[in-house]
């Protein structure tokens, strides 16, 4: 097995870690959500990478039948995950709007300082 066979996984891990870094290193709450989205997309790509088969094609039947089809299950799971992801993002953004209203800031450090004063 050639090491290039794992190249896709490594790109996925790189994207995943970039998102992870944004989530833990940046103080702005919106930036954290953006990082979470990067992380999320990398998970989608990981699933789809596993489903792809060499020489396979899209699992949709046409006039001419192909011999090999890519596995349909990852696509189905990820379709569900994308929609659930946008729902959670919407709730997170609504929470951020309320935090901004209540505290006047969406920087984590400032929020910490305000909480310590109280």
């Amino acid at each position: 097995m050639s090491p290039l066979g794992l190249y896709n996984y490594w790109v996925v891990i790189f994207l995943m870690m970039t998102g992870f870094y944004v989530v833990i290193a940046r103080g702005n709450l919106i930036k954290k959500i953006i990082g979470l989205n990067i992380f999320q997309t990398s998970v989608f790509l990981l699933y789809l990478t596993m489903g792809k088969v060499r020489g396979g094609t899209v699992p949709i039947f046409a006039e001419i039948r192909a011999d090999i089809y890519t596995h349909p299950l990852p696509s189905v799971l990820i379709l569900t995950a994308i929609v659930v992801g946008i729902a959670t993002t919407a709730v997170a953004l609504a929470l951020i709007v309320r935090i901004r209203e209540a505290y006047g800031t969406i920087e984590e450090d400032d929020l910490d300082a305000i909480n310590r004063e109280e």
Partner: protein
Amino acid sequence: MLLLTLLAATAVTIARMRSLLAAVMLTGIYSFLGAGWMLLLDAPDVAFTEAAVGAGVSTVLMLATLALTGSDMKPRGHSPWLPLAAVLVTGAALVYGTMDMPAFGDPNAPIQLYPSPSYVDKTEAEIGVPNVITAVLGSYRGYDTLGETTVIFTAGIAVLLLLRGRHRRVRGDDTPSDGETPR
């Protein structure tokens, strides 16, 4: 290969970016590149959804939030080395984990052997729609999809409850996000 490099470069640029507005726009580009890769991985349905939801709806939601909260971002006080170290260690552990993964496109990978007979073989006789993904989504895993709609319903209610009464508290500040009546 070029697409993957572009994807990685976009992600790093988003991570380094100070302007939130530019970061949000780049997230849209990132989603589109991701959708392109999904198309190459034989998942056109997912690519459509990602382009519409990831690059479209998500960007609009982020921009609406930025309009309400402002797009300035303060640099953080402490050094970035601790999170960077945590990320590198996690990444190394994950790369070590991929050593046991089947190679990309391997027809004998575990995922390709189950379920047997596969959805592709069963769909035409049992469901009768040409798109196997639709058949699995709507029929074989129909409860998943029902659960998904429940999640969206719950999220919609949560957003409405969270944003309700903004008009009462913040005078003269009109919400562009949803069309609810002021109370």
